[in-house]
């Protein structure tokens, strides 16, 4: 009798737990588990969005990895952007944040000036950058020419297109600046005072006081930056299209990655394969690669983070 009551109590408790968890469970199931399982399922199917999916084994995987000429350039570009653009954005955002916390007058003006570009719509900002960096008519190259400096091809040169995208990303660094400013202002003043009394230089104060205190925020910026860069789509697409001269005329062929596939990113491939070539199976393969990469980067960064903080603590 007592055992029966205990079981009933446990069952009720379990049900109550599930009931409390149900909003999360439903959200997780609908928005994460189901799409993920579907993506794996469709990566093994031939499906154009209209007919019935047909099983084709690992054909889509071998097509993407061996025969799809855009995959490896897109992967290389994505990794380049993750390593270079994210690093530059974090360093620059931290630098601007430090600068603004140090200046005595006009803080509001500088803060606004640095934050405003972040609010610009990505398409408009990219169009403006393509115009400014136009090698034939853009003001940037005119100034460089006047100064006797070499004028790069920017968005029309495969060697310069990703640095140009990085410059665009640095221009819109306002989001990182704000969170770094908040973190920097939160560092206890007495720690700086103690370091100064010990005769620590500015670099040592930054290395042993500032950095350990803000390292969780740095890690946040890096992890979210990596994830955002994995999803990088609008800016390279718009820049490539506008710089190539193809801006959507009647029936013109879509040419992602101009110039010479240097602005191709993995999300562009998902769209190109799935929604333009009706090859959902291959699009799913690329989506899964993207997922695996994001997980790997996140796991790596989380492991590294422990070391960083220990060094500072």
């Amino acid at each position, binding site marked *: 009798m007592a055992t029966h009551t205990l079981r009933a109590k446990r069952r009720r408790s379990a049900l109550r737990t599930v009931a409390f968890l149900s909003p999360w469970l439903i959200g997780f199931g609908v928005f994460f588990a189901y799409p993920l399982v579907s993506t794996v399922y469709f990566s093994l199917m031939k499906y154009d969005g*209209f*007919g019935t999916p047909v099983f084709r084994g690992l054909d889509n995987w071998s097509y993407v990895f061996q*025969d799809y000429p855009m995959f490896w350039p897109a992967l290389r570009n994505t990794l380049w952007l993750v390593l270079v653009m994210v690093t530059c954005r974090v360093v620059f955002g931290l630098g601007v944040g430090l600068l603004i916390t140090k200046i005595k007058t006009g803080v509001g003006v500088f803060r606004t000036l640095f934050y405003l570009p972040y609010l610009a719509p990505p398409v408009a900002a990219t169009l403006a950058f393509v115009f400014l960096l136009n090698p034939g*008519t853009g003001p940037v190259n005119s100034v460089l020419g006047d100064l006797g400096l070499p004028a790069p091809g920017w968005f029309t040169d495969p060697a310069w297109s990703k640095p140009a995208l990085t410059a665009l990303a640095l221009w819109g660094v306002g989001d990182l600046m704000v969170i770094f400013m908040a973190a920097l202002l939160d560092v206890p003043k007495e720690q700086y005072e103690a370091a100064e009394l010990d005769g620590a230089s500015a670099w040592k104060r930054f290395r042993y006081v500032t950095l350990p205190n803000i390292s*969780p925020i740095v890690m946040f910026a890096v992890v979210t930056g990596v994830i955002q860069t994995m999803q990088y789509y609008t800016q390279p697409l718009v820049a490539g299209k506008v710089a190539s001269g193809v801006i959507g005329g009647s029936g013109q062929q879509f040419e992602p990655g101009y110039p010479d596939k240097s602005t191709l990113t993995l999300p562009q491939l998902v769209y190109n394969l799935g929604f*333009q070539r009706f090859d959902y199976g291959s699009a799913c393969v690329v*989506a899964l690669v993207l997922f695996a990469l994001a997980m790997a980067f996140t796991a790596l960064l989380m492991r590294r983070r422990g070391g960083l903080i220990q060094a500072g603590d």
Partner: protein
Amino acid sequence: MPGKSRKVISSMSRRSAAALAASASLALLATACTGSSEAGAHDDPNARSTITFWHGWSAPAEVKAIQANVDAFEKAHPNITVKVVGNINDDKLNQALRAGGSNGPDVVSSFTTSNVGKFCSSGAFLDLKPFIEKSKLDLGKLIPKPMLDYTQFEGTRCALPLLGDAYGLYYDKDAFEKAGIESPPKTWSEFAKVAKKLTKTKGDGYEQLGFMPTYHGYETVVDHYMAQWDHAYFGHDGKSSVAKDPAFAEMFTYQKKLVDDLGGFTRLEKYRNTFGDEWGAKHPFHTGQVAMQLDGEWRLGMAKDAGADFEIGTAPMPVADDEVDEYGKGFLSGTIIGIAPRSEKQNAAWELVKYLTTDTAAVVSFANAIHNVPSTFEALKSPDLKVEPGFKTFLDIAQNPHSNTPPASVNGSTYQTTLQDFGFQYESGKVTDLKAGLEKTARQIDRDIEQAK
């Protein structure tokens, strides 16, 4: 406090990772939500109904013109009301065709002729054969053959042409006169000489370029060039013949030599970056930056509207030196129109499609309004068709039996994009072995098609 922050950050990172996974996968979520049932043509075309028509035109004059045609249709079919939605591109169209639903389109159109193979083979556009048979239309007597060809794929007719585009040569008659050139070139060797004669260099740029030959020179893309050579993209076995058919090697060789002769790829690309937008008033042909331009029939009206201050000449594009008997041909494409497979009012939708594509008055008035080439024999001959002097060139190109367009493929324009991509590599000098490059391109085209089947 740092410990607490670490926990928060750790939790946020995990959530972010989960968010990425969700977003990376969500692109595919829709696929599982689509049904596959077809509504079928069971509606009564005489019953009162409202149908939705999606088209891609966006310029005010074009929107007004298509609306005028729809108004005329509603007058002739008082039981059918048409809800018109403009500015629809292929991406929006594809998504709507997959999703279906009561707010989806019944009648759909696209500017992308090269996507017909994809539309027909996937069932994105409904097979029109039963409707054509029911209406007893003899399409061969109504519509020119090239236009009939590019609106079907492997025997499935899923679209009809709604006006057409013909491509030819525009030239600055004043510049020709100054350079002592009496008539437009008819062969590619004549063309190269004329282009060089019209080119005036200035520093490391140009005061005037005879012709912008690069594949990014707006309409100077691979398939538009290829139309002027006798060629076949695919063999009888359905395999790519770009490496076997000598016309492709001839075209790539010719274009590369023209690029080199006119100043080289780097110099031309630098000059190209000073050009205005293709669809704006500062188009290089309007401004006199180039003296010749390969373009569609719409350029005539656009150049005049932009206030080009020179006399504009039009002619067919040149042909290969040993194909002079085919001079007069050109590249053709055009708007295609069809019925959404999930439409519940397919018979009413067919009435609109039939009216817009076969009614002579409708075709003529629309062609007059948007300066396109009519897509029926009757409309081409109609006395109501406004034929300006330069425009007649394009009407003739449209009716030339040798005019052509790339064949439809199961993966749409992918094979053209692949060939174009090779063109970029070759013209810029990144690839120098033409034969090996074309063989690799052919293998890629075959593999992509195999993947799409």
